[in-house]
Structures are given as C-alpha cells and as structure tokens.
C-alpha cells in the first residue's frame, strides 16, 4: 500500500468523523472546532489531488475567515449559552438528506464509471490492487497531467483575467461580494428608536409619560419653594 493511500484513508476518516461530530455534539463551540478539523482534512485532500494552491486557499478563506465569521455569529446570537439540545426533527431531516443524496448522485454521477466498479475498485484499493489494469493513483503521473499540474495556478490566473474565459465571472464575483457586504451592513445598521410602527407608538407613549412626570415635578417644585425664592424667581422673570 502506498503512502498516499494511507494518507487518504486517514484524511477520510478524520473528515467523516469530524463532520459527524459537528452535527451530533451539543456544544456549539465544539461544533465549530470540529468543522475546522474537517476543513483541514479537505485541505489535505486538495494536496493529494496536486492542487496545492487550493489547499492553501482553503486554509486562508475557510479556516481563516469563514470559521471566524461563524464563531462570531454564534457568539453574537447565542452569547455563551452554547449548550443546545439535539434537533427534534432529526428523523425527518435524515429522510430528506437521503433523498437529496440520491437525486444528486443520479444527476452528478460521472458517466463512464458505474457504481459497482467504484465500490469494487474501492475494496481492491484497500487491498493494494489495481484499478482498470493500472496501479491506481490520485493524479496519473504521465506527460499531459504533468503539464497541467505544473502550470495549473498560472493558467488559472491567466484565465481569470481573460474576458473570453473567466474574466466576466471574476467581475461578477466581485459584484457579488460587494452586494453581500452592502446587504450585511444594511441589515446590521443601528436603528433609531421610532423606526417601526410598534416602536413608534411605544415612543409616543414614552414621550407622554415623560411629559406627565415633568409637569408633576414642576408642580411639586412650585409647592415646595419657600416664598422668598418664589418671589426671586418671579422677579427674575421680569
């Protein structure tokens, strides 16, 4: 068994285990941490697929930005009361997930490979055998894949700028990011007191209450003032 197969096995077990723990653990912060472990495993798989740039991008964006955003959002909405009970709709959710998985599998299955070949090939893999007559590799070590692998990031960069390939999509994704930022800022804006109808009526009631209190306070003051001071204030008013 090759080293890469062992590494792949370890990464798979880590990924599936961490993903299972994310949905079953009761502590939300731990769930976020298990999610981060699963992101690390995915980055490892990108490395096995000879896509080093995407492994580092996974670390940078998912673990460095999105996980932190996730944790901040959890803290913002739940505080530190992070113990949550298990979802009571787990059964229905399980059935729906299985249906969605079946639909996706039917539509996304790569055409030339049949399901039983993959399963049988997988077992053969575990025993260190071959697949389709040649030793199985993640990315075959021949001439055409070598050229792609060595230049992949460069070609991606050139394609990102080229309007004929991905340039328009680049601008679109920039616009999408902009829209996301603007939307979030709008949603999180500070509202003035009387922004909604209920708030407005409440604000009016508050104002009336305050006016009433003020008039009461003035009346008390006027009654409590000694005559001299009252005369002085009357004089001051002239």
């Amino acid at each position, binding site marked *: 068994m090759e080293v890469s197969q062992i590494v792949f096995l370890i990464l798979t077990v880590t990924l599936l285990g961490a993903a299972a723990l994310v949905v079953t653990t009761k502590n939300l912060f731990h769930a976020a941490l298990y999610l981060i472990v699963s992101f690390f495993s995915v980055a490892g798989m990108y490395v096995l697929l000879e896509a080093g740039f995407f492994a580092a991008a996974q670390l940078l964006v998912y673990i460095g930005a999105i996980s932190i955003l996730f944790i901040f959002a959890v803290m913002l909405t739940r505080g530190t009361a992070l113990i949550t009970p298990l979802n009571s709709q787990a059964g229905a959710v399980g059935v729906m997930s299985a249906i969605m998985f079946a639909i996706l599998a039917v539509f996304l299955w790569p055409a030339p490979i049949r399901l039983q070949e993959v399963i049988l090939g997988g077992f053969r893999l575990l025993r260190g055998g071959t697949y389709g007559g040649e030793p199985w590799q993640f990315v075959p070590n021949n001439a055409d894949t070598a050229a792609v692998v060595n230049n992949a990031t460069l070609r991606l960069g050139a394609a990102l*700028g080229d309007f004929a390939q991905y340039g328009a999509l680049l601008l679109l994704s920039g616009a999408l990011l902009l829209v996301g930022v603007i939307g979030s800022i709008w949603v999180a804006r500070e509202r003035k007191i009387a922004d909604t109808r209920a708030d407005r009526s409440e604000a009016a009631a508050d104002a009336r209450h305050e006016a009433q209190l003020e008039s009461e306070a003035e009346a008390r003051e006027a009654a409590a003032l000694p005559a001299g001071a009252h005369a002085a204030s009357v004089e001051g008013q002239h």
Partner: protein
Amino acid sequence: MRTDFAFVGVMLLVVFGAVAVVPVLNGLLGPKKPNAAKQATYECGMETVGDAWVQFRVQYYLFALIFVLFDVGGVLLFPFALAYNGVAIWSVLVVMLFAGTLLAGLFYAWRKGVLTWD
C-alpha cells in the same frame, strides 16, 4: 507537489509531538496544590459576577465580514499575479476593475460608519 507537502505533514506531526511534551513535562515537574481560590476564574482579584457572558458587539462581525471580502479578493488576485507576465493589457484592466470593486466595498463601509471603533 505531493512530496513537497509531505514535508509539511511530517513537520506538523513532529512539531506537534515535540511541543505537546512540554506541558506534560511541566505537569510532572511543577507542584500540585490546587485549592478553590486558585482554580476560580480570574476577575482582578474579586469574586466573579455571573457566568462568562460578554457584551458581544456587532462591530466584531462587521469587521470580520470586510475581512472576508478582501480575503477572497486576495485569493482571486494571487493567481493573476502569477500569470501577470504573460498577460495582455485588457486582462490587467479587468482585474483592475475587480480590485476597484473591492475598494468600493471598503469605501461604502467607511462612509456608513461601520469602520469606527472596535
């Protein structure tokens, strides 16, 4: 490339093992006299008031959001920087427009007062 990253994998494991030894060693070498006062949560020498609840402001989330904008933007700019030498001037203009979009997001947040205080 897999063999390049193999060093990183080995380094991760070896350094993790080497560093994990340190607190264990400290636990063996140090005294162990726990008492209630030492193990209580630290609050400037007073008794703690309430659970560890923190007034979490929404500014933290908004800063992280602007960071995500520039993070993803940077990740998209890096491959273009790699391919910069062999690329024509209109590609440069397209990417300049993209970078301008990022800057526009920052200026919007600036004007809306999102970037004030922590």
